[in-house]
């Protein structure tokens, strides 16, 4: 059943799901699973909450599918849910560098570093990700989300504006300030070769 839906567009699938076709939801899940997980991971970091929050996003999609009216693209709608879920998330206070402890490193290894890399490469990669995550965490939530959508999800300013429900000039301003802050945070690491 999933194969026949493979070539259908997202808007068709969501309508099918609302008409009680569960396989349509599964197909949508498969299409957006990595993207949403990626967004949440970039926003929260390599913590177990990343999984929970990703699940929350898809549960919200499942429950509120009938509210999708087709005024925007489905991708905009699901990303809007993901962004709001992230922005509403109250992050537990912990240092990003704690991601290098056993559980954090293991999680990063599972997510990022394939088995074929050496332990040194795995550690270097994990450390680099922790440095980047720490810099991202220094951004205010809106700047962080805008930056992730632009840099890691590849959205245009117009698309980001639609997702975040702000003007294009606001997006431009958010991204400019985010980059200035990241430059300030990361330049010292760059200078010592850790980045």
């Amino acid at each position, binding site marked *: 059943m999933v194969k026949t839906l493979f070539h259908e567009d997202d808007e068709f699938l969501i309508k099918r799901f609302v008409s009680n076709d569960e396989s349509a939801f599964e197909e949508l899940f498969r299409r957006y699973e990595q993207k949403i*997980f*990626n967004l949440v991971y970039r926003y929260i970091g390599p913590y177990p909450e990343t*999984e929970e929050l990703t699940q929350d996003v898809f*549960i919200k999609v499942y429950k509120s599918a009938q509210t999708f009216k087709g005024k925007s693209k489905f991708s905009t709608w699901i990303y809007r849910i993901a962004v709001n879920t992230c922005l509403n998330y109250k992050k537990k206070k912990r240092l990003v560098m704690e991601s290098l402890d056993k559980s954090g490193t293991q999680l990063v290894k599972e997510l990022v570093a394939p088995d074929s890399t050496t332990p040194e490469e795995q550690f270097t990669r994990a450390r680099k990700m922790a440095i980047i995550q720490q810099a991202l965490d220094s951004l205010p939530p809106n700047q962080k989300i805008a930056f992730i959508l632009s840099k890691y999800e590849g959205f245009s300013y117009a698309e980001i504006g639609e997702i975040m429900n702000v003007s294009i000039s606001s997006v431009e301003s958010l991204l*400019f300030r985010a*980059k200035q802050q*990241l430059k300030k945070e*990361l330049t010292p690491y*760059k200078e010592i070769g850790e*980045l």
Partner: protein
Amino acid sequence: MKCAKAKRKISMLLDGELEKNEEEKLLAHLNVCENCRKEKEALHSILTSIEPTATITAPPYLYLKVKQQIREQEVKKSLSRPLLRWLRPITVTLGVVVILFFSSLIGNFLGKRIWTGQTAPATSQEFVTTIGFDVFSDTPNASFGYIYNNLLTGGK
């Protein structure tokens, strides 16, 4: 173009969001302004460093977990409905009983306070006169008014 404006345009240039004519103006400024040129290079270097070098892979069991959570939430919801159906009237009834009980306690307390606040209770004669029951005082013996008057005055 001023440098402050150029810095903002550099950010947009690196995102590929500049219109062609704006891009030309910015590049013309970068040709003559070393500071802004260095700013562009520094920013470009940082942004390149944080390019994703590895794929963040979602765990393979995520869909199953989502379905399981949805199922659990639906079961909880369906269980709570019959529970609410009989819980609501019981809660309302209990609420009314509690309110009546405490009202009577408060009323009893206040009533005693007000009653004991009086200097002396009214005499039965005062009571009869005030209410106007003394109209029965001249009624013949064994008549209804006579009996009634006796009841009010205690036979006095």
